[in-house]
């Protein structure tokens, strides 16, 4: 089979190539699912939205822009579809209710490093990341997990590039401050404890000392 770049598949699909349509599905279905399931925990809604997205692409393909950024275009379109069907599925259309983004870090199994201290820090960091505002988490996910450019992230989230940068900046700054505060409070906490009790402390506190 010939190896085309993603944009070539896109253009061949617009010209009416069925095989390219299937290739687009193969290239993006799992990435789209992985993104949207963080947006909406209901797998059926996500699958329905992916279905609608591809059906629309097929139906309106003669009108599609052949020079689009394919990945950002697909992610952005799916995002709108998921939001729409979430609005429909829950009768309350309060925007805050409909906007959820989970990184899903806490449920994962991690390879534990031999370094206990490092494991503790990472666990804490993951927990703090999940506490960030939804839009910040989404920006982090698109920028670093999906390795997208600011231009792509901006297109998907439908905001300016500058706003994207601000989201990332605030998210990382927040994480830094929370991690620093955490360290200080641990230090203070332990400093006021009688010396003999230190050994009874759970690993969390001890590892934070250094």
């Amino acid at each position, binding site marked *: 089979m010939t190896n085309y770049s993603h944009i070539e598949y896109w253009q061949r699909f617009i010209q009416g190539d069925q095989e390219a349509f299937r290739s687009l599905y193969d290239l993006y279905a799992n990435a789209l699912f*992985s993104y949207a399931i963080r947006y909406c925990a209901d797998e059926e809604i996500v699958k329905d939205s992916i279905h609608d997205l591809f059906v629309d692409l097929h139906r309106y393909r003669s009108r599609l822009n052949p020079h689009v950024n394919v990945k950002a275009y697909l992610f952005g379109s799916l995002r709108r579809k998921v939001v729409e069907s979430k609005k429909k599925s829950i009768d309350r259309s309060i925007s805050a209710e409909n906007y959820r983004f989970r990184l899903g870090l806490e449920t994962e199994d991690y390879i534990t490093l031999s370094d206990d201290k490092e494991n503790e820090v990472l666990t804490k960091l993951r927990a703090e990341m999940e506490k960030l505002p939804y839009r910040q988490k989404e920006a982090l996910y698109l920028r670093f997990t999906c390795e997208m450019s600011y231009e792509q992230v901006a297109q998907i989230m439908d905001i300016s590039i500058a706003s994207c940068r601000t989201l990332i900046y605030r998210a990382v700054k927040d994480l830094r401050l929370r991690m620093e505060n955490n360290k200080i409070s641990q230090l203070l906490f332990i400093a006021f404890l009688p010396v003999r009790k230190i050994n009874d402390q759970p690993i969390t506190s001890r590892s934070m000392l250094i």
Partner: protein
Amino acid sequence: MERKVEDILSGDSPSEDLDKEAADVRKLGNRILNILQSTRSHKLSSDAYIALWMRIEETTRKSVRRTRQIRMLRYSAVACVVLTLSIFFWNKQVHEMSYESLLYNATISQNLITEEEEVSIRQGNGQQMLISDGQVIDLRSNEENENRQKKTPTFNTVTVPYGKRIEVILPDNSKVWLNAGSQLTFPTIFETAERRVYLEGEGYFDVEGELERPFYVHTANMVVKVLGTTFNISSYKDDPFASTVLLSGEIELQGVGETLFEPHVLKPGTAAVLRKDSKRLSISNETVEDHISWRQKQLILKNTPLAEITARLERVYNTDIKVESASGANETFSGRLDLTQPLTNLLTTLYNPLEYQLQKEERRIIINKR
């Protein structure tokens, strides 16, 4: 000025820039990046992946159909190229996916059994037709007429609601009588190497013998491989058992999914009954007639428990039969019930009118002990 980790990560090339920074900035930055980059990607299960694609493909096929003819005239040359490509593409898919497509098509419309009032056929092109009583669904001509222009495997689904039954002639000339509350899904054209159908409910099969092309009946619990025979399969969801009865020829049974048993070859005149709870297959040489008597609109009973009889009558007459007192459910009956009779007549033979009172509502009969 000292640079903080947020300055680096919000920049354009965070990983390269981090390397130039102080240890604490670098450490936190790399931790954040590592966590985000190693987070699990939630993939679709392979079944869901295929099923979703088939749904997309089916929907687009429907909408393309209408516009295609116009386009064919205007850009016939272009259309031919597209068509050739699609034929090539689809043919490749056909063999890998024919069984999955059959299963998929069989499961998407099972709700019709309880929702429809009349026998219906949903054809490959998505059209649905209602069939009036006593008609035979004859799909024989299709195999020659539809030349191999078909690009995708398409499926017909015949749905028989409770209270109805129908005879179907399949594209290969095999005949199937479908009992009440059943559904049969099969391709509009059988493949050259094999014939596969999916049955929910009960069907009496008279399969056209073709040594080169085995015939498979898939059900929820087992697969029956056929080489030209007559047999009856009963595989209702709400029955505690599934049975296969062979009248002539030879068939092979195989378990599906959780139902595992050694492939079993059935001899003519025997019945195989699968108990769904124990997942055990038992073979009996009892006369097979009572299993297939529904075709002659008769129900033959041989020490049949009352509960089983009422369950069958419910399906045939599409009526809820509610017995208020539990007594008598274990009572067994032998004999012959004429299913052309009104239901109340049959019930009075089963429930002595001196002891029981029948209360008839629309689609519902309540039996009370006097």
